[in-house]
């Protein structure tokens, strides 16, 4: 009997409870539905939820804690000193027991372990039955209560709806919990980081070189955690991206809303959406293998020294990626400008381009600014393109031909591999994450503000 089987049985029971509750309600009024407070099926739902909720609770408890208890019992069942543990911790023995449970004596030969495995199997079997019985009892108790409560006056629908409402609220709080989780985990690890490295050094230090010694006898790595070069690199690449995406995205939005025929729109908009739907890892591959060498060769042919991991390549490809982002948001902003404004301008003899530049764009400006801000926040947080195409060199430079590194690149570099939660190196990734979170949050807040304000003008 597995827990999935138990779930199925609980489910069947709740179906039965539904039928029973429904029947019962009809029985209490002798089949005259109009005498019931709620529809018969509401009594059914009420009964079913009283079955599902307690028994699922028991099942969840079993799944969360059951194995732990069983393991303890199994370990206690092994006679002291019977397995050559030699100070080795229990969970190793336990894994052997588990393997023996899974695979029998194919791998495991030690009779003590096999005995423990047998014990575990039997105890597990019993425990499953106990769980099953408990779940069943709880379900039946719920059912009995529901049936007892069933009377023509019983407000079954209201009860069911209350239960439903609680479930709805519980679901909505998950979104809050996510935010709390993000903030808490980032903040907690960052605080530990700032105990080792002063926050002022992190925010204003000019040198990033997270080479801390890994062992006591390793020398030569002082470790500098000044994140300014990373911020500068992120800023440089984001600006390059915006230099590409801003004009192209905005002009494309203008053309598509103001000039393009329906046919062009029908083709161009989905094409832009495809550009938005391409996974970033694909852009990264494209940037690293195609664009970066191309730029380098182009640079060489005109005598420019462009690094293979130049900020330029990563920035331009990232710009391509956020074109659709800018264009669709600007599109919305432009379409939201009341028709009367442009009609008025055209009627006064302005050409379409004059209307756009002098009337529509100023009116749509808040929305467009919002779009740009959102695009910047997107560029700042983008990871795969820079991981694959930008460098690891924390250069403090504004030269797009040189290699720079970004916040996200460093987070990935610091966290892939060495996973210990105690070195300043690992913790600094969380501090960087916190900065990233705060900055994107800030951009987003401003963007929302700006857009809200603009709405007030025409509504």
């Amino acid at each position, binding site marked *: 009997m*597995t*827990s*999935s*089987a*138990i*779930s*199925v049985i*609980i*489910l069947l029971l709740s179906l039965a409870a539904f039928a029973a509750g429904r029947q019962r309600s009809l029985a209490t009024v002798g089949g005259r539905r109009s005498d019931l407070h709620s529809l018969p099926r509401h009594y059914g739902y009420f009964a079913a939820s009283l079955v*599902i909720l307690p028994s*699922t609770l028991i*099942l*969840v408890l079993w*799944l969360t804690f059951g*194995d732990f208890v*069983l*393991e303890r019992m199994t370990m206690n069942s092994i006679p002291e000193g019977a397995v050559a543990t*030699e*100070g*080795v*911790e229990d*969970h*190793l023995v336990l*894994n*052997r027991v*588990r*393997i023996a449970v*899974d*695979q029998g004596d194919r*791998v*495991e030969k030690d009779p003590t372990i096999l005995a423990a495995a047998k014990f575990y199997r039997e105890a*597990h079997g019993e425990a499953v039955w106990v769980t099953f019985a408990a779940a069943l009892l709880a379900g039946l108790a719920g059912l009995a209560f529901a049936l007892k409560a069933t009377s023509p006056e019983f407000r079954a629908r209201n009860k069911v709806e209350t239960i439903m409402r609680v479930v709805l609220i519980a679901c909505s709080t998950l979104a809050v919990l996510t935010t709390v989780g993000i903030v808490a985990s980032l903040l907690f690890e960052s605080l530990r980081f700032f105990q080792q490295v002063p926050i002022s050094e992190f925010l204003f230090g000019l040198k990033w*070189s997270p*080479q*801390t*010694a*890994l*062992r*006591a*006898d*390793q*020398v*030569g*790595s*002082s470790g*500098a955690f000044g994140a300014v070069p990373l911020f500068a690199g992120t800023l440089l690449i984001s600006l390059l991206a915006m230099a590409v995406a801003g004009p192209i995205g905005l002009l494309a939005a203008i053309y598509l809303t103001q000039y393009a025929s329906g046919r062009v729109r029908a083709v161009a908009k989905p094409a832009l959406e495809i550009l938005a739907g391409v996974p970033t890892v694909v852009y990264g591959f494209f940037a690293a293998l195609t664009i970066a*060498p191309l730029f380098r060769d182009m640079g060489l042919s005109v005598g420019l020294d462009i*690094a*293979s*991991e130049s900020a330029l390549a990563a920035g331009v490809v990232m710009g391509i990626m956020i074109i659709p982002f800018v264009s669709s948001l600007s599109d919305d902003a432009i379409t939201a400008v009341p028709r009367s404004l442009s009609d008025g301008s055209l009627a006064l003899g302005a050409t379409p381009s004059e209307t756009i530049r002098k009337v529509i764009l100023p009116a749509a400006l808040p929305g467009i600014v919002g779009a740009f801000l959102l695009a910047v926040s997107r560029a700042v947080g983008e990871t795969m393109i820079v991981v694959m195409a930008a*460098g*690891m*060199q924390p*250069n403090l430079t504004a030269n797009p031909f040189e290699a720079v590194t970004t916040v996200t690149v460093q987070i990935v*570099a610091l966290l*892939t*591999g*060495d*996973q*210990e939660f105690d070195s300043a190196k690992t913790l600094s990734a969380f501090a960087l994450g916190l900065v990233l979170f705060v900055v994107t949050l800030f951009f987003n807040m401003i963007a929302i503000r700006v857009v809200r304000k603009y709405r007030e003008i025409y509504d």
Partner: protein
Amino acid sequence: MKKYLLGTIAALAFIGSTGAHAQSRDQIRIVGSSTVFPFSTAVAEEFGRTTNFKAPIVESTGSGGGLKLFCGGVGTAHPDITNSSRRIKQSEVDMCAANGVSEIVEMKIGFDGIVMAAAKTSPSMTLALHHIYLALAAQVPAPGTDGGEGHLIPNPFKRWNEIDPSLPNEEIVVLGPPPTSGTRDAFVELALEVGCDFFKGNAALKKSNENKHKQVCQTVREDGAYVEAGENDNLIVQKLQADGRAVGVFGYSFLDQNSDVLQAFPVAKDDAEAVEPTFEAISSGDYPVSRSLYVYVKKAHVGVVPGIKEFLTEFTSEATWGDMGYLADRGLIPLPEDERATVAEDVAALKPLSLK
């Protein structure tokens, strides 16, 4: 209503399937050096294909990072095997022991040379170990001195020809591995430290002030001439191809894979003849910057996680690590035959490591 029922069924089935019972681990987990990664993945794959066991999961974390994870403790949450491109240090053995990992089986699997290489299109150079030291150390002897206490200055060299006129007039940009990497440790030990002792003042420090000696000879400059290029040696190779100034530091196997685009620099020890990093020169020990590669196994996990012993048998079979084995095809330089026999025997007997 049917839809919601279906949803509930799915959700319950999901709950049921997640934790039926806590999973046992029947797959070997390997972490560690990116240099050994291509070899251990090849063995892992072959092992999975030719036996009834699942193929081990291999993660590339760097030698130091791997040993750290490996020494985290015993139990299924910790890896069974770690690869290392240098020998385990006493401090790491202590860390292991502190976490209950008392018995470690060491398996030396072969040699690797650390090469300094650049793109084929870059100017070639012949380096001596002290050139490397002068180019990459944080502190170097002041002009006209032999180093040692009071004669050290922060590294002033920006171009190779400032170190030695025989070297090209090119900016010093060296892409190398970070401290988590065994390549870095071995490089520091075999190239920087030896090159450092070329200067008598520095060498004398070793006796008078060992800590100072360590600091002088092992500290890599952090002013941008040495760039930590990450654990991933492949990335270094790709970067070299595009950046003509850059010189890379990585394992011989990567040079072997990319011999069509990279050129390795001959390296000389002291004033001896410079040696090209070739298969023969490394296995004979003529090439000065060569090192042994290791695999460490947690003895406590043998028999717990199925297949570890069989995996070691596969690793130490002639078809794998022999002169004609498939690891040699991937650039591993095999141990001499008699050493292979000893190691294989020790590993089969699970002889625990002792550093003394």
